[in-house]
């Protein structure tokens, strides 16, 4: 796992802002300056940050829709196959293919498939669970889940330059800028799951 800039021992620079508004303004500046490998860390979802940073739109909704469809068709087909082909029984004189009776289980299968896909799909697409991440070694990073708003610029960004980027981030109104140090473990991890 070789890394493109072995002279730098920095995974990313993390700039800290006091409010979501400051974060959004700064994020637009970062995007307009041409940084691509960026992210934000916030204690709660900040509306508009995805657009402000120019991140790609998520396709979770489509994924869950497909899962729901799969669950519904699968659940319905399971019952049709069992009651007409595999194990046909006459129950209260109903026809073998008594589809109104299959609706409740079809519905439950749809919800179950969609729900499981939503939860585990979110985790997998977010590359979680991941107990270690290079960012966790940054000074003051704990505040990102409790009250501070942060922008991350990764060192793999083509425009990244430790000194220049740091002063640029300060000019966007950051309260402080800290470097996330890179150990070998973190380097491998980052190369593995680039920018996820």
């Amino acid at each position, binding site marked *: 796992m070789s890394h493109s800039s072995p002279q730098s021992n920095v995974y990313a620079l993390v700039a800290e802002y006091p409010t979501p508004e400051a974060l959004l303004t700064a994020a637009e500046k970062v995007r307009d300056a041409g940084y691509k490998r960026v992210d934000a860390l916030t204690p709660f979802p900040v509306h508009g940050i995805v657009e402000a940073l120019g991140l790609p739109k998520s396709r979770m909704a489509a994924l869950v829709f497909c899962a729901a469809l799969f669950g519904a068709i699968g659940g319905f087909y399971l019952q049709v196959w069992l009651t007409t082909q595999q*194990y046909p029984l006459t129950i209260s004189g109903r026809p073998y293919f008594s589809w109104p009776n299959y609706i409740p289980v079809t519905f439950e299968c749809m919800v179950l498939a969609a*729900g499981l896909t939503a939860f585990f799909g979110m985790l997998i697409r977010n590359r979680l669970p991941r107990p270690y991440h290079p960012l*966790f070694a940054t000074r003051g990073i*704990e505040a990102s889940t409790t009250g501070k708003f942060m922008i991350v610029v990764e060192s793999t960004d083509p425009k990244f330059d430790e000194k220049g980027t740091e002063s640029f981030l300060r000019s966007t109104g950051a309260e402080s800028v800290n470097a996330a140090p890179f150990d070998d473990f973190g380097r491998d991890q980052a190369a593995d799951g680039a920018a996820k």
Partner: protein
Amino acid sequence: MMGICFLIVGLLFTTITKLVTTGIGIWGNNQPVAWAFDIVNFVWWIGIGHAGTLISAILFLFRQEWRTSINRFAEAMTIFAVMCAGLYPLLHLGRPWLFYWLFPYPNVMQTWPQFRSPLMWDVFAVSTYFTISVLFWYTGLLPDLASLRDRAKSRIAQVITGVAALGWRGSARHWQRYDIIYLLLAGLSTPLVLSVHSIVSLDFAVAQLPGWHTTIFPPYFVAGAVYSGFAMVLTFMIPVRAFFGFKDFVTQRHLDAMSKVMLATGLIVLYGYAMEAFVGLVYSGNPNEYFQMHNRMFGPYGWSYWMLITCNGIIPQLLWLKRVRLNPVLLWFITIVINIGMWLERFVIIVISLHRDFVPSSWGMYFPTKWDFGMFIGTMGFFGFMMCLFIRFIPMFAGFELRELLHKKKSHSH
């Protein structure tokens, strides 16, 4: 409190041990009343669970921001209530260790479940409901666990919360997907919760028995579930609020809003009782229906019907008064009354309908045994015990949502 609950959990385990080693003959149910406390309690607990989903999912979709300070608590209640509920049908199977026969899987016996039975629908409904409730709850917890991890002082706390938070770091990409799936889970839970109690009601409505065989059941059961669920949330919330001083999080407004939901669903339930009486005594013209309703009111279990009307129909009308809604002590007593009333409702529907059906030669009486009560009180202790553990160890309020709300409020006032 926790100690008392723990003792009662002991009672539950004793009962289950006795039940599994002896058989379900230790319960009082037998022909003709083959369903009694077990199904009464099952429906009661499932109904209680529904308030959690309603508060967290439906109020989320309606953007009712006051839900934020009670949703975590109510969701936890859902999960524990569904656990209690699930125990009953499971143990009523007689050989609970063969419960997996209920699921469709290829087996050497070459048999498959019978999908035209509402009992089979129940298996799917309740297991899906439990799974989705747990996922929804954990999704909501994830950012708060990360926040706990970052504030944890001791090594043990750091490791435990670190593992539980799954490495959540509040990245913008993560939040984007998180927001979408939280909305989707809420959207899925909403019809799910309605379907679960509708399917539970079909366990009865699909049968031919007078008193069960009515089309009014699904909506009437769902309203009853919400009614008892909100009552149970308040039964727990009011003492917790007073004891821990959470009056800034759970305000008078919450009590007021929840009382109004109880009042509204209570009126729907009351309408259900009125319709049952009207159809049975007047409209159907069917002698069996007529007899069933008459027997419900004036038969040997008539006392339970009139207690039900008092508990669910008359006393909660006090909630029309704002003074009552804002008085936590009085409100707490009303929620207890509603909990009792909703339990009686299921008792009336199940036991009274079963004990005298079409042919007098198959009539009988039902008397619960001490093991019936052991099981019932035991699950209440289990529920209380789990709630105590929850309050002690898991963030009771949705921290990140409260922060977001606080921020919104601040920027609006600028």
